[in-house]
């Protein structure tokens, strides 16, 4: 189990790398677009749709990793009380698992919507990139996020030591 978790951690480098490269490219794209427009009156016409796709990649490549690290924004106001009652683990386990499970329905629907976009022939304005491609990427990453949250939640609850040990290699 521990080697598996460690493998997952190593693999999580890949989506983070994808997000990082896309982010850097987005920065350069915006810069070039402004300079070309200001200096030569020749903006990159596809910049808007490329920007849209870039953000989708940045967000959804990062989301499973963020979820796996428990990095979502949360309020820790009652932490001391839960700690005193020794209910932290139970609470985090249930809440994390539940967060993962509730993602499954939208994830399935995103697949439907991707297929619908394909059947209607939706494409982007300038580059004619199929809308369904990006939507499928979002769907897959949403499923992955759900899976990561469910596994993480169950482990916090049932096997916290595994999670802890795997984190200290």
């Amino acid at each position, binding site marked *: 189990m521990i080697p598996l978790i460690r493998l997952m951690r190593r693999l999580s480098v890949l989506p983070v790398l994808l997000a990082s490269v896309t*982010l850097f490219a987005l920065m350069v794209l915006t810069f070039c677009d402004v300079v070309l427009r200001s200096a030569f009156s020749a903006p990159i016409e596809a910049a808007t749709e490329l*920007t*849209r796709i870039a953000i989708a990649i940045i*967000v959804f490549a990062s989301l499973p990793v*963020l979820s796996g690290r428990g990095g979502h924004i949360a*309020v820790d106001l*009652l932490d001391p009380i839960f700690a005193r009652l020794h209910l932290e683990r139970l609470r985090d386990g249930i809440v994390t698992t539940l967060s993962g499970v*509730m993602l499954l329905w*939208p994830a399935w629907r*995103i697949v439907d919507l991707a297929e619908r976009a394909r059947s209607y022939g939706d494409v982007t304005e300038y580059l004619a990139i199929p809308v369904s491609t990006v939507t499928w990427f979002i769907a897959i990453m949403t499923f992955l996020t759900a899976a990561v949250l469910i596994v993480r939640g169950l482990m916090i609850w049932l096997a916290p030591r595994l999670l802890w040990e795997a984190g200290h290699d």
Partner: protein
Amino acid sequence: MTDSLIGFAAVLVLVLLRMPIAFAMGLVGLVGYALETNFRGAISMAARLVIDTSQDYGLSVVPLFILMGLFVNKGGISRELYQVSNAFLGHFRGGLAMATIVACGGFAAICGSSLATAATMSKVAMPEMRKYGYADSLSTASIAAGGTLGILIPPSVILVIYGLLTETSIGQLFIAGIIPGALGILFYLAAVYISVLRNPAAGPAGPRATWGQRLAALRGVWSVLLLFGLVIGGLYGALDVWPIHLTFSPTEAAGMGAMGAFLIALARGGLTLADIREVLEETALTTASLFAVLIGAWIFSNFVNIAGLPEALANGVMEMGLAPWMVMALIVLIYVALGCVFESLSMLLLTVPIFFPLVTGMGFNPVWFGIIVVVVTEISLITPPVGLNVFILKGVVGNVSTATIFRGVTPFWMMDILRLLLLLLIPGLTLFLPSQMLP
């Protein structure tokens, strides 16, 4: 109305159970929307918002402004900012704390987040103030309070999100934040002055810098001025002069700022490939967490919308015959109360969908209201018992109790309330600059 209030309570409970805000709002919004309409529709609504929010062109300013702040930080600019304000202010009583406030204001001009401003400045300013025997209460409080300027002085992630939630011009919001932000610096300087007046031992005067030292320190801040000038000048249309003609939308300003910060950090040397990777990774993960919250908030606000809360509130106000200023006073009081428990983003996301239609329906200016919301949000960051900036200080500094910090923050908090009243009573302070922006 009842449905919405139950939903609101459900979100509160889930959030207090430490469910991530994104999931708490998303779940309640989804279930509520399903009960108001049907399950299939609610799921589709949520799924579409996941797809569309993550491809919203306007939201690309979020990662780009975060990126700019992180690159700037890697370039060592925060330290130089502190050194230069110290060279000019350090020899006054409480001068190091005053220098901290000014440096926070300067750093806020290139960083969009209050937490990042506080965290960064605490690493730079705290050791100096300890060295000169400043009381922990004053030094931590000046950083915690000064850090809140991060979201008022443009660029500001909170103003961006307010603009996106309410379709208010982000450019105008940014420009509108400048005078209230400058006022904030002045008022905080006054708070330092009051603190050392009451307890002179809390902030002894530091050594006086020579003019030579001051000029040498000034040379370090050109990059901050350059970046701020580029971003705000481009937004304001001030760079639309021959032969540059640089004008940009907020998204583009963010992109230019990020690229500029990257190039400056690179030019100063010391920016390794590992640094770049770290900055990009942190930005991507922060972006993902913000987008998740935005999607959840939108789903929740759709539930509130379909359940008819905005209309019910507006009707209620009409029936009670409240004057607009009374409603505004009530809203501000609610914000200050909520500010005790909530941190900035969640407070904004929970309340703006409810209050905004009411406020604009009564004829208040959306840009002005945005600035008011950000100022009360700033106040929430240093209001006990949950003041995020105070916790940041506690986290970075370590051996100081939150009670000490909150005690030191009191004069700053009172100056904040004073500033809030001023902004409420004189809308021109907020709206003058944006009104000059129109061609």
